[in-house]
């Protein structure tokens, strides 16, 4: 914990000395507008711990800085951000250092919470891949601009994880049972689908992005109505493709509203017999290859059991307990196995353990929600939020 506070002051000096250009995050200033550019293009802007800490401090500093009106977040290269740096987290665990992974998530979830309760408008330009942790640094903000290049996914169940970064909050608030579908199958959504389901607030063609940014800088305003009007000026109504799952909400309801994972899988199988749509066969395939423990955690615990009924603060505190239990690996080691099969050995053939849903008892799932019995471990402490606009608070 002491190490973190040293980092805090480092960043603080960095900001005060106005030398804000750091390697993995580029900061551009234009009047009252700050642009934070995720800058790890070769890793598809995967978020390292350093980037998370920098973002945390940058956002906190900008909130205090009366000069700052608006924050724009975007990615360098063809991705917005492909997520948290799971591979390096997994390497830490393998080295026996799960606690440093926990520290990563601690900062990451604190950032998610900060953005969800941020007092100034954030415009995220999602011109490319937005996955996992990438969603966590954008979806919680006020304006999310999708483009024809946007690809959104929460692919955690294939990695032996569960949708985190506050996803239990935002996925559970998608229309009907679309959130369960997106979170459990890890399906990819395009920009039009993101707009349709509410993950994005606007759709702007990528060629208009430079002009949009310029207009936002020129306006130099914090007024959400004005910002919205400016983005609207560049927006278009994208075509939602015929085969989009979003046209199949009734079928998605039938399957994904079920009380249990096995109920959902059964319903998906039934649905797949009834129709041969691509989305349902993909859903069937991905749910069969996902970690059974991940599925149970994601559904029973994140989407249905808790997230839908909780505020963002409660959501990230719970997710932090869960992720720490996953990282410690006493109940299941699926996360390391998922990383092995996807990042290290690349055999795409994970050996989940437990391998079947019926081998997972309720109490094994329950244990993920308990505080860790580990010396020095503490629940996630949410950063204090002063002058919080009331609309931002669900229940702290």
């Amino acid at each position, binding site marked *: 914990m002491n190490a973190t506070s040293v980092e805090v002051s480092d960043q603080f000096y960095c900001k005060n000395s106005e030398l804000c250009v750091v390697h993995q995050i580029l900061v551009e200033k234009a009047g009252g507008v700050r642009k934070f550019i995720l800058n790890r293009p070769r890793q598809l802007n995967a978020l390292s711990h350093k980037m998370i800490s920098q973002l945390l401090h940058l956002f906190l500093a900008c909130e205090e800085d*009366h000069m700052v*009106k608006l924050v724009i977040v975007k990615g360098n290269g063809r991705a917005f951000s492909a997520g948290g740096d799971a591979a390096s987290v997994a390497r830490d665990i393998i080295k026996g250092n799960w606690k440093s992974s926990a520290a990563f998530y601690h900062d990451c979830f604190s950032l998610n919470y900060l953005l*969800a309760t941020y007092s100034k*408008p954030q415009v995220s330009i999602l011109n490319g891949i937005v996955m996992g942790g990438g969603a966590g640094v954008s*979806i*919680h*903000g*006020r*304006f999310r601009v999708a483009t024809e290049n946007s690809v959104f996914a929460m692919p955690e169940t294939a990695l032996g994880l569960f949708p985190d970064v506050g996803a239990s*909050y*935002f996925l*559970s*608030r*998608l*229309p*009907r*049972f679309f959130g369960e579908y997106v979170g459990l199958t890890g399906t990819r959504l395009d920009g039009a689908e993101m707009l349709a*389901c*509410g993950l994005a*607030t*606007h759709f702007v063609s990528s060629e208009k992005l430079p002009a949009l940014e310029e207009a936002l800088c020129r306006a130099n*305003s*914090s*007024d*959400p*109505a004005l*910002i*919205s*009007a400016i*983005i*609207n000026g560049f927006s278009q109504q994208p075509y939602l493709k015929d085969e989009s799952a979003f046209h199949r909400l009734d079928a998605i*309801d*039938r399957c994904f*509203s*079920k*009380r249990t994972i096995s*109920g959902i899988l059964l319903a998906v199988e039934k649905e797949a017999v009834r129709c041969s749509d691509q989305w349902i066969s993909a859903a069937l395939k991905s749910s069969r290859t996902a970690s059974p423990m991940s599925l149970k955690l994601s559904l*029973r615990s994140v*989407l*249905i*059991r*808790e997230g*839908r*009924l909780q*505020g*963002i603060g409660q959501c990230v505190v719970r997710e932090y307990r869960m992720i720490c239990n996953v990282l410690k690996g006493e109940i299941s080691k699926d996360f390391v196995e998922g990383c092995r099969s996807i990042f290290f050995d690349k055999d795409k053939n994970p050996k989940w353990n437990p391998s079947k849903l019926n081998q997972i008892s309720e109490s094994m799932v329950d244990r993920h929600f308990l505080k860790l019995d580990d010396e020095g471990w503490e629940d996630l402490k949410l950063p204090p939020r002063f002058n*919080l*606009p*009331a*609309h*931002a*608070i*669900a*229940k*702290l």
Partner: protein
Amino acid sequence: MASSSSSSVDQVSRRTQILTNHLNQSGFAPYSSSSSSTSLEFSACINFSPPELSERIEFDTKEMRKLLDAHNLEDRDWLYGLMRQSNLFNPRKLGGRVFVWPDYNQSMEQQREMTMKRIGYMIDRGVFEGWLTAQGPEAKLRKLALMEVIGIFDHSLSVKLGVHFMLWGGAIQFFGTKRHHDKWLRATENYAVKGCFAMSELGHGSNVRGIETVTTYDSKTEEFVINTPCESAQKYWIGGAANHATHTVVFSQLNINGKNQGVHAFIAQIRDLDGNICPNIRIADCGHKIGLNGVDNGRIWFDNARIPRENLLNSVADVSPDGQYLSSIKDPDQRFAAFLAPLTSGRVNITVNAVYSAKISLAIAIRYALTRRAFSVAPNEPEMLLLDYPSHQRRLLPLLAKTYAMSFAANYLKFLYVNRTPELNKAIHVVSSAFKAATTWHNMKTLQECREACGGQGLKTENRIGHMKAEYDVQSTFEGDNNVLMQQISKALFGEYIAAKKGNKLFKGLGLEHLNKSCPVTASQLTSSTLRCSQFQTDVFCLRERDLLNRFVAEVSEHQAQGKNKEYAFILSYQIAQDLGRAFSDRAILQTFTEAERALTGGPLKEILGHVRSMYALITLEEDSSFLRYGYLSTDHVAAVRKEVTKLCSELRSHALALVDSFGIPDAFLSPIAFNWLESNSWSSVQQQLGGTTFASAI
């Protein structure tokens, strides 16, 4: 106006000064050049501050919720989610939050159709799986938990389901035999048939044995013939009958070969599967009601309607094909008692529902009282939060404590019911009668107080509380009028007393064992620690029950000695009967509370529950005049109690938010005034055209 005297100039300047002061006081200082605020946001006169920012949470509210909800928490949350995610449940976005509650501005017909559509949605999602076909306590608890959640959304929906599953389905389960179970239970569970329960008549409600519908048997065709002989015999208030039900259980006198065998239950079809009313059946609507307009209550007349012999629900009595009456229970009184079993399940359901209704209203009113301010104590000071007024605490916090107590009582009753054995039937009947009356009266009182505590906001239907008064009023009447139930409790206790004294036996069951011990004595001086001691509280409750029972028996005996018959003697002793009924209920409720407390090992949860229990006990001592009337407490005692209640109010004040959070009712099922009522009432909320919002309000 023309006179430009100096006094008029003075007046103007004084007024200007006053206005400026007003503006400055409320933090709205548009002309102040020294304003350091650089915020571009409009600075409102009053800022909304969520209670979570100022209130401390000193115990684990999740653990408390586990204790209060007691079972099937995940099933509950799943169903909350199912409702919240469907447009059928009328989600509305206000102040950036989604709320669900039925549109009570719809016509009666529309509300009834919505109720059926919501049921259809839940059928498709397997909510009712196993409600009638699964065995064992676990399945029953799941059903009860889901019913509770449904009731939190809408009382009509829960009543409509209660009639179909608990009354119609329950009648088939309890009065029917295998042939009925095989034919009807599965069909009921998946709504292949829609059932109702035709018991009460225009002329007979609580007095079921007096109903006038008559059924005879025709051995030639092996059919029963059901008839409504007069207008007072029309079936009345039959939930589901007006629009949707295809079948009904009919309660009727059974007349075999000219001999009346008493009340029996039959299955009759009243509509075909296309919804057309069957021949020899007439149905009329009960019309618009003060509440529960999502339930289609109707009236039924039977014009010598014929039903197959097999449709007699024959668990206690049967009629052979050649028309012989057969029953294993010879005593018609006992036979009738066997019929009352399904009504017990209804009472269990009502009891629990009433407690959840009180929880909703308290959660809303207390959250509002933690954010709404009124009047300053001194000039230039900020206005005071409603809940910081001792008077406001005194209005809401004792009701909160009672709601906790009754929550434990309801759980006790529920578990008694799902684990019941035939020996427990009498106890369940008495306890369910007592708790049903106590909780439903408590709920109505709570709703009224909470409505008033929310001021004008309480009158808006969207804020739920005011409307719920009309929705829940019926609870004190259906499944047994509360006053009649109180008398039944006293009668039952009378029976226990006579049996114990005559047989020279000890009291056993119904929590009456304390009567076997010597009479507790109240200390002459009541200190704070005595008042908060659970032994003292129990003693004084027991003392009241014991003495009132003695008095009741004495009074009834006196009337009997004067030549009145027993029934009339009971009727004449109604005042003590009422007091005794309450004494029994209060003591039984306190007992469930102390038992729930005892199960905890310690820690902050147990500590706070101790305060809540003391509040429950002491407020009962303060409010119920029988303690003073019969001298269980002196005027000095009552003064000490009153002082202690005030102290407890200020102690519970700091836990108020945590205590209502522990109810576990999701935000969407509360109401806009429970949250940011400034934003939900703002002009921009009227316009709802602000593009781009935080995630929660984006969808």
